[in-house]
């Protein structure tokens, strides 16, 4: 509705509004990592180092300086795009994140797609038969899904589908040994493989994705299905649906064009929250499936007090979160003409 420039500027303004939160994240992460009990210098120095070499390393890492100074240094590095080196993996954090992020995103996207594909029809089905057995069954299924700890679901799936039945490929990360990862375009193996027409690799990557994605999808079914149901119910009872019915529109048009498009708005908001939540929940699933994503990276980093890695991880997640919210805002304005970006 607004001219493109004003939309651009409002996006810029939105980003500006997110800056305080990002700064907050930087400060909190910095303080939190410094509060971690481990001594990175001691860790960095290796198993048999003496006090002197630890002190040397502490100095070279800048850890001997007062906290405010360390923070300023950290900010300066950030401003230059430097996230430092991870102690435990020995790689630059930025590089590591860039390499691992697509793995997490591919898994998260695929899981959410899967979840949406199940949850939305379920929600609609429940909303069109409220109080009926099918409604209760849907509620039961999605609630059961969200009640299982993801690590438990993951292990159980591996046990049943890989170990006992042998249906799933070995839970060894993104691709089996037999395949070479496709050249990076998007970083998503399935898409990259398809881009070069390598169906076999795409299929193998998809097969690897299946179990972890199901694990995550099971967990995310509930919020999506519930929100779909609730907002469908609300929309279906609204007056314009009655108008549409009274005008003799077919059931499909009423349900799809009229009801669902209106009901989808809160579902998108939920999807945004679920997305960021899932990225966080990846932590546990990636551990189970040896998935080389940023979640498992973060856990390892946190456990060994790897400052730079933890900071980089949290910061990139926060940036992702801000970007995601922006995308949702924009999506919203595209779907709902009543909402302007600059409200």
């Amino acid at each position: 509705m607004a001219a493109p420039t004003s939309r651009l500027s409002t996006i810029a303004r939105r980003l500006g509004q997110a800056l305080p939160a990002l700064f907050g994240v930087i400060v909190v992460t910095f303080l939190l990592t410094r509060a971690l009990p481990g001594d990175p210098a001691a860790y960095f120095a290796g198993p048999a180092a003496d006090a002197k070499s630890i002190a040397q390393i502490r100095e070279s890492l800048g850890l001997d300086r007062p906290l405010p100074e360390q923070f300023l240094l950290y900010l300066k590095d950030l401003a230059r795009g430097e996230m430092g080196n991870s102690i435990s993996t020995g790689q630059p954090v930025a590089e590591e994140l860039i390499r691992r992020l697509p793995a997490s995103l591919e898994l998260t996207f695929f899981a959410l797609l899967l979840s949406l594909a199940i949850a939305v029809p379920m929600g609609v089905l429940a909303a069109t038969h409220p109080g009926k057995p099918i409604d209760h069954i849907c509620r039961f299924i999605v609630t059961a899904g969200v009640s299982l700890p993801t690590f438990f679901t993951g292990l159980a799936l591996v046990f049943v589908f890989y170990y006992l039945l042998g249906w799933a490929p070995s839970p060894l990360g993104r691709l089996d040994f037999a395949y070479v990862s496709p050249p990076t375009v998007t970083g998503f193996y399935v898409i990259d493989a398809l881009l070069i027409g390598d169906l076999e690799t795409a299929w193998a990557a998809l097969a690897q994705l299946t179990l972890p994605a199901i694990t995550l999808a099971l967990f995310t079914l509930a919020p999506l299905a519930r929100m779909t149901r609730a907002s469908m119910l609300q929309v279906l009872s609204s007056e314009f649906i009655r108008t549409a019915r009274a005008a003799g529109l077919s059931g499909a048009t009423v349900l799809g064009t009229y009801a669902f498009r209106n009901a989808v708005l809160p579902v998108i908001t939920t999807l945004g929250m679920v997305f960021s939540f899932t990225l966080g929940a990846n932590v546990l699933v990636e551990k189970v499936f040896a998935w080389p994503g940023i979640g498992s990276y973060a856990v390892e980093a946190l456990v060994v007090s790897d400052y730079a890695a933890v900071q980089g991880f949290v910061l990139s997640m926060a940036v992702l979160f801000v970007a995601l919210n922006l995308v949702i805002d924009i999506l919203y304005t595209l779907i709902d003409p009543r909402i302007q970006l600059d409200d």
Partner: protein
Amino acid sequence: MDRRKFIKTAGATALSANVLPFLKFSTAEAAPAGTAVVVIGQTLNSLDLHRKGTNRPSYQISVNCYDRLVSFGTKKMPDGSLSYDYSVLKPDLAESWEQTADGKSLIFKLRADAVFSDGSPVTAADVKWSLDRAVSLGGFPAVQMKAGSLIKPEQFVAVDEKTFKIDLIRPSKLTLPDLAVPVPFIINSKVAKEHATKDDPWATEYLHRNVAGSGAYKVTRWDPGQQLVYERNEKWTSGPLPGVKRVIVREVPSGATRRALIERGDVDMSFGVSDKDAKELAEKKGVSVVATPIENCIYCLCPNLGFEPFQDKKVRQAVAFTVPYEEIFKVAAYGQGVPMWGGKAASPTDISWPQPFPYSTNIEKAKALLAETKYKDGFEVPLSINLSLASWMEPAALLIQEGLAKVGIKTTIEKIPGANWRSQALVEKKLPLHLENFGGWLNYPDYYFFWAYLKGHLFNSSNYDNPEVAKLVDETLHMEVSDPAYAPKIKRLLEIAFDDVPRIPLWQPTLNSAMSSKLTGYEYWFHRQLDARKLGKVGA
């Protein structure tokens, strides 16, 4: 890297077998002949052992991709498996070596045919550069070199193209074995120097991600956090070529998954399996398990002398009598390993190491001992364990907790994250009672005592301080084992350790690896990392 499948055996059949993601297919089948797939639980973080922060699993790069001047021999264990042989030093890059007449230097003659994987010959200059690097970069490599009395670059001299000399600061039995550990590996200095900069004269950045060695394998692919792919170095001269062309080391953090993989035959080896899995997998068809007791390593319960009650020897002995050894061995180690309790005599009869201490579970005796102290009503103490080693430490700690409760010592179990363990247990030495797992690479009791019983030394997390022990260790550390003075002194050392028990040994652990019965050539090494140099595959 060729982007096609580098294992492109039967593409068509693979495709037809994979029409459904859930359709069963075996990766071991998909992996072609000549490839061995190994899963490990930890992650490799560098290709350069000398770099600061390089973790232990990464040491295998040094073993598999680099050579040293000398190496240890191989022996067959009673169960038929292979182990390195500490007693035999054999040539590696050096075809021969001798001590100079004055005993102050070692002269090494390099093999004429030794070449790096890029084809350039291995020269004394390369050796000199590599050893200089090992002592100059500081950190663990320097410490390990120091154990062999190798402390400064001036000691290393490239005499000519193929002759290398080390000037000794003292004669020591440790020097030659220390040259066979993973640390002093020989780097292709020409390649490395090309990538050295003013700020980084030792090319740490380059060697962190690249291998420039003469070893049995080259690294063709490294996806940190995921996998490492070794490819056989066809120009390797230091031994017979490995039986497999390619080794894929895949990192799988979940122990359960690793077990499932080996059990289902999807991988050729699971390196470093838990005691429980080792015990159970051994009974499965198609899987063989090799469990080798780790030399010079003991799992201990350490009472810290910095904590007042444990300054009393009788309290420590009382604790040693309350530990339910049998149960711990059964529950925490699943019977894998060598018992370190129930020794027959209060003083050692031989100098074999490690050997059982003269303690066993005896609550009455413990109570009696405790009654002689001012702690007869017991006391409270936290019992700390390392979270990364929780698989054995946690059950052990729980059983110890129960045992101690019987004599009135109340414990609370503290789980300390792996990262903090080192600084709290070893550096600050502030854990009053904890479990410990030190093992020495060089297989001498005096070497163990040097690290674990001397005041201020890193692994002496008990804060033990005994001038006599210090004196004995100092005398024996560099002394040849054949020296007649050696055995009596070691016996005395052990006697003190038995009596004072600043470390209460539980058992000598094993290094367990499970492998498909087709895989051959697995060899145990003191460094407890994968040695892929002798691997082969039946029917490959």
